[in-house]
């Protein structure tokens, strides 16, 4: 039944409605201001250029891993082999060593090597090492599960708190491990890499 109350919007409801509209108007104006600030050229430039230039990692072609760069992407490729291979970046300085956590986000795609918990061909790990006076004091790894048939990239992230350590630099290590005693020929493409000191 349509209640009687629907017939006349009472005074209290009018006041509440007006307050809601005024509050939203203020929020909306703040939102517009925020949008315009986000769109200013400086903010936009900071946003679009915040990724690390992959060439600057100085990741060498090493052993059986070939590292190449194309249109801003970094490609790692390797032939079929039996034993673990790895390559590591140059030691890169932290810009804000006074911060507490390092987070590395990567967009990586490549030849399929996983389907849920089942692994095939090879395993890929990326390790972030915190470096203090040239010595690795802490590290953390993430497995790169390449689950797609269409080699589309996915976001992988490593977050490594300093926990009392005073690192002044970091290093990235790429490790290819065998599955069932063998590494198949494979490749992967890192499309972007973002390093955040939090």
């Amino acid at each position: 039944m349509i209640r009687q109350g629907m017939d006349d919007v009472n005074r209290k409801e009018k006041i509440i409605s007006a307050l809601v509209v005024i509050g939203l108007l203020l929020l909306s104006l703040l939102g517009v201001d925020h949008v315009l600030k986000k769109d200013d050229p400086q903010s936009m430039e900071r946003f679009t250029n915040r990724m690390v230039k992959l060439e600057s990692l100085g990741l060498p072609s090493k052993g059986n891993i070939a590292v190449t760069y194309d249109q801003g992407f970094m490609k790692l490729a390797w032939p079929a082999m039996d034993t673990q291979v790895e390559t590591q970046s140059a030691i890169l300085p932290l810009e804000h060593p006074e911060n507490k956590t390092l987070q590395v986000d990567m967009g990586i795609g490549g030849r399929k090597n996983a389907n849920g918990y089942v692994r095939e061909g090879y395993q890929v790990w990326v390790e972030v090492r915190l470096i203090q006076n040239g010595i690795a004091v802490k590290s953390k790894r993430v497995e790169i599960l390449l689950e797609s048939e269409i080699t589309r990239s996915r976001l992988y992230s490593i977050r490594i708190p300093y926990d009392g350590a005073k690192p002044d630099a970091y290093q990235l290590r790429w490790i290819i491990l065998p599955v069932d005693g063998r590494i198949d020929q494979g490749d992967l493409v890192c499309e972007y890499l973002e390093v955040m000191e939090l």
Partner: protein
Amino acid sequence: MNRPPFDLTKKQAVWWLVVIFALGFVLRVFATYEWPMGINHFSDDNGYLNSGATFLKTGYVTYAKPNVPSGVLGPGMPILLGMIFAVFGYQPEGLMASHVAFAGIGLLTALGLYLLGALLHSRLAGVVASAFGALDFGLVSTNSAFYTETPFMCLMVFGLYFFLKSVLDWRLGRYLAGVACFCAAMAFKGLALLLPPCILAYLLYRRVKLSKWLPQAVLLVVISALVFLPWCVRNQQIIGVFTPFPTSQGDQKLLGTYVGVGYPDGTYEEALEKLDAMAWEQGYQTDTIHRIKDRGEYGQERLAQWIAQNPLGFLFTHLLYKPVSLLILPFYPHKTLHVPLRLVNLCWWVLLVLALWGVLSGKLTGKKSYPGFYVPLILLALSVWVPSLMVPLARYNAANMPFVMLYAAIGIANGLPLIHRDKSRSLQERMEKST
């Protein structure tokens, strides 16, 4: 309206809901648990994952490329996933938790279905509807990956509930909750715009005077405009169009002109070849947005050609062929817990038959319909017809699934007393024979 005699008490309903939600939660946890970083289909869900993480880090709305602001999605997913990631993170262990949290929204939808069922029919119908919503494998699968459909259908169910409830039993708070659900749903999909006309149709059917609902309608328009103003300004800056809606429908529109009866000659592949050749000639082959826009415009031309060449075929296709094609497709994006697609399809078709019975059974058995009973049906009909200009993809049917489940549950609630009566009758007959 009196409740049917064959109904649950409030206490019974609560117990059933607890059991259903527990089962629904376990299913969703197991569906996610099969994947070490949560389910990722490397489709739109991958783009949303990126968008949520980028929004959390930068406050910018992006899609596949994390350093390019995008106009192909609404603000809903980046904000929602950004909030979930803020709690759990998007590192592998956090992603699992985020997937489960996201899937939990599916359980909220089931709760909304209970409320709607109880409002429009009986607690029994509500409990059965919530069981369908929580345990249907199509929805479990949809909820377990990051798709807009999960929050969208939840908000549409609650939006409809709050609006209907406020029409039946007016309270401003309820109405504002409906407006909030509507605005939030709009942030995920423009199809939310279909919600207010359904309520309006009901008000007109009830012959409620204009002066009584107009202030509320104005309030809805003003609030929606204020909520989406910053987003429209943002779209103006980024994609050059002052609109709250995403701009990515071109491909689906073009594809839709190759489905149905009497559509113009040519194939989709030929069209793409032609349009891509044009993009290369004019030097915008890397501009995906421009290319998708071209496809939409070409699709529009083909639609006009279709109407001119075969108007009857066009009408038949868009009024019947495509809507029915869409309605019979359950969305099952990912094989979940080894349940085959064939079984999901079969369950869905049973639900459709039950829903049809649910819609008709009241009339067939001579019962007076409950107030607002047909409002979800209007929403369902509009939601099936409006996207019929596009290609009928199962994903477009996902948001319709809860409303089909609602009527299927009503069908069961209407059918149970009949079975019960028949059983009593046959028992009586047997007793008479034996004496």
